[in-house]
């Protein structure tokens, strides 16, 4: 590739033609401040509208300042990133942005984690000239089951739009209006819950300010724990343990499983269980369904639809219900681990401890914002009492731990309670892209072939970080074609193939977020550093490796559950408690 030489702040640098000033500067350790710019390198999403002008720099021979994020370098270019002229301009730009930004930083959910706040600190903004004359935009706040939109705090960086449209191809959010009145919203500024939003939360994951945040249930949790007549049960999703440590100064990829259990117990949960247990249960149901459909297909049954799609991810489920309703019957009917857990906790476990479901509150701790919405779906309640009462995110848990003054890293490592805290390496892999299908493959392989996998337990071909992966697994002479997609845009491509009748797959795993649940909308913010997601993925596989049992069907508590309570996988009771169906919620144009 052709190289060009340029000088940035008196330092020479050689970069490929087409590189931007921002990237060239970064290469030699010069940190040009940015605000609207976002580069999620590992998932191929770059947002550089050049709109905020915070990254303005001086280019010799050019009259106006240039936005470093969107200006390509040329041979012999001389760039100065922090002259007095630049500093002045940058300061003015930020002052203007702040002049139309609410000043409720003390109570804002993003306080301490806000890129605009960081910028104001970095540039030493201490006053906003002309604030008394400045007009303030006002929009109503929109509360959906998962996401809160406070558009007064929108700075029009349009990162959320890039995630919603380019990466997820959901198309719920778009910029509207012009100039001062511009903001980002669904069509006709309708509430998010009436839009095609899937609640994946990737808009929240990239929002630099408090404009997009999660619905916070931590007060509900404190109320439940404070009520002596309520049994409060926690379930923790696999991806949480691989990211929570980041909120306490740990390197990305630090596992804090035992310390997290300690913290939850000290917070006052009556039982601390593991969603991984329910992930193992999911494999029993989904794996059995997969084998059942596969056997029928191989025997030439024309009524059997393949591929079978995973159904653990609620954003993905809502995506197919919204965008591909004609295909709503091909995902597995197995409920997600969160919902299986709730269903079993409020029946099997409630019976065991002789309590009524009304007196039990099941709280899930999730890397996900769509889980908040999923727990509120009507079909997951009995007489109005939800199987999972509410879901809190990894970030909300971190806040609670800090509020309770626990020094997470100095807490002793403790184990989950039994029976619903027993889990296998297969269960923990649900946290990463490729993990669910690998867990299912381990169980389906042994059930189908009757052979023990022994040392061949790792299916390397199913692992990785590419958006779409294709692999073949040999089931003792039968080749099983597996597709994996993370990100709904990638999922869309696989769905189009199925629609066209061109799909080569027997089974497909889909997760809505980059990297799977490890990159969920409820995780500690990655602030555009996708290497963090890869480190979390590594931690998930490390947890699998450290588990004494690594196959779902060998989980002793799962065996007991079927023996004592459920009967057969896919049996009548299992069907009632652990399976579901999907609905057409697409937009339809009708003749009036």
């Amino acid at each position, binding site marked *: 590739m052709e190289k060009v030489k340029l000088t940035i702040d008196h330092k020479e640098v050689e970069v490929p033609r087409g590189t931007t000033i921002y990237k060239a500067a970064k290469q030699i350790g010069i940190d040009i401040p940015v605000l609207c710019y976002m580069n999620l390198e590992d998932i191929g999403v770059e947002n550089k509208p050049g709109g905020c002008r915070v990254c303005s720099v001086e280019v010799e021979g050019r009259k106006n300042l240039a936005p470093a994020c969107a200006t390509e370098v040329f041979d012999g270019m001389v760039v100065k990133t922090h002259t007095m002229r630049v500093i002045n301009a940058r300061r003015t730009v930020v002052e203007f942005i702040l002049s139309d930004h609410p000043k409720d930083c003390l109570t804002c959910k993003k306080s301490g984690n806000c890129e605009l706040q960081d910028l104001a600190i970095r540039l030493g903004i201490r006053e906003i000239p002309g604030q008394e004359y400045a007009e303030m935009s006002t929009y109503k706040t929109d509360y959906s089951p998962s996401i809160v939109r406070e558009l007064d705090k929108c700075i029009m960086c349009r990162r959320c739009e890039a995630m919603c*449209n380019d990466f997820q191809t*959901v*198309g*719920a*959010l*778009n*910029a*509207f*209006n*012009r100039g001062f009145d511009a903001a980002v*919203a*669904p*069509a*006709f500024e309708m509430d998010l819950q*009436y*839009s*095609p939003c899937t609640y994946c939360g990737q808009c929240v994951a990239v929002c630099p300010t408090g404009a997009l945040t999660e619905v916070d249930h931590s007060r509900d949790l404190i109320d439940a724990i404070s009520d002596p007549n309520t049994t409060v049960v926690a379930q923790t999703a696999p991806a949480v343990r691989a990211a929570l440590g980041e909120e306490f100064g740990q390197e990305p990829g630090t596992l804090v499983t035992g310390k997290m259990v300690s913290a939850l117990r000290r917070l006052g949960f009556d039982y601390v269980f593991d969603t991984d247990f329910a992930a193992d249960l999911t494999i029993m149901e989904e794996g059995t369904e997969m084998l059942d459909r596969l056997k029928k297909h191989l025997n030439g049954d024309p009524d059997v639809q393949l591929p079978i799609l995973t159904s653990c991810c609620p954003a993905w489920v809502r995506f197919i*219900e919204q965008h591909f309703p004609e295909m709503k019957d091909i995902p597995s009917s197995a409920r997600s681990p969160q919902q299986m857990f709730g269903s079993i906790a409020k029946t099997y476990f409630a019976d065991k401890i002789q309590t009524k479901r009304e007196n039990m509150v099941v709280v899930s701790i999730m890397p996900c914002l769509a889980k908040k919405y999923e727990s509120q*779906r*009507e079909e997951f309640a009995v007489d109005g009492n939800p199987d999972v009462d509410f879901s809190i995110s990894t970030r909300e848990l971190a806040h609670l731990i800090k509020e309770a003054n626990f020094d997470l890293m100095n807490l002793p490592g403790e184990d989950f309670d039994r029976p619903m805290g027993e889990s296998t390496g297969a269960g923990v892999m649900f946290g990463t892209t490729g993990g669910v299908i690998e867990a299912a493959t381990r169980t389906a392989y042994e059930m189908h072939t009757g052979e023990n996998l022994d040392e061949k337990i790792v299916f390397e071909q199913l692992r990785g970080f590419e958006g779409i992966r294709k692999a073949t697994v040999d089931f003792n002479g039968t080749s099983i074609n597996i597709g994996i997609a993370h990100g709904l845009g990638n999922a869309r491509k696989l769905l189009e193939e199925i629609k066209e009748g061109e799909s080569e797959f027997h089974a497909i795993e889909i997760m809505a977020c980059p990297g799977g649940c490890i990159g969920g909308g409820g995780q500690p913010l990655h602030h555009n550093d996708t290497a963090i997601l890869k480190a979390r993925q590594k931690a998930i596989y490390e947890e699998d490796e450290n588990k004494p049992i690594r196959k779902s069907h060998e989980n002793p508590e799962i065996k007991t559950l079927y023996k004592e309570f459920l009967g057969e996988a896919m049996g009548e009771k299992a069907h009632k408690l652990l399976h579901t169906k999907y*609905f*057409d*919620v*697409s*937009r*339809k*144009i*009708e*003749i*009036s």
Partner: protein
Amino acid sequence: MSRIKVKIKEQDLNKIRDICQAHGNQPGELINVLQQTQEHFGYLPAEIQEAVANELGLPVAKVYGVVTFYSFFTMIPQGRYPVSICTGTACYVRGADNVLQEFKRQLEIEVGETSEDGKFSLNCLRCVGACGLAPVVLVGDKTYGRVAPDGVKDILAEYQDKE
């Protein structure tokens, strides 16, 4: 949970389909499609935008984004007698703003709005090439020159008795 249903008249939907097909149902033709659609319907209400989005395979949020970005597009039906005030440089320096304020006061509407009886709508435009007559006001196709605020009442009176 149920489907979101958007109701539209059959003849309207057919018209939109014709327009979209004439542009090869290409998403990149959105602005041209909207322009012709507005020419036909007079404005672009929500259900029309939904139908255009559906035909072109675009998110309706994107269509709404374009409609609200360009001042040419409107979601409000225009009055039977659309009033346009030139606020180009020549008209402006000769008092177009005072004329505009008087129209707003008399009609009790803002720029971009339509009066309750559907008779008048109010808009600004930039230069109609009749600077010698500044300030200029258009009502429908009829041009009024050298308009002063105290002449506004008479202009509106011409249309008051018409249907």
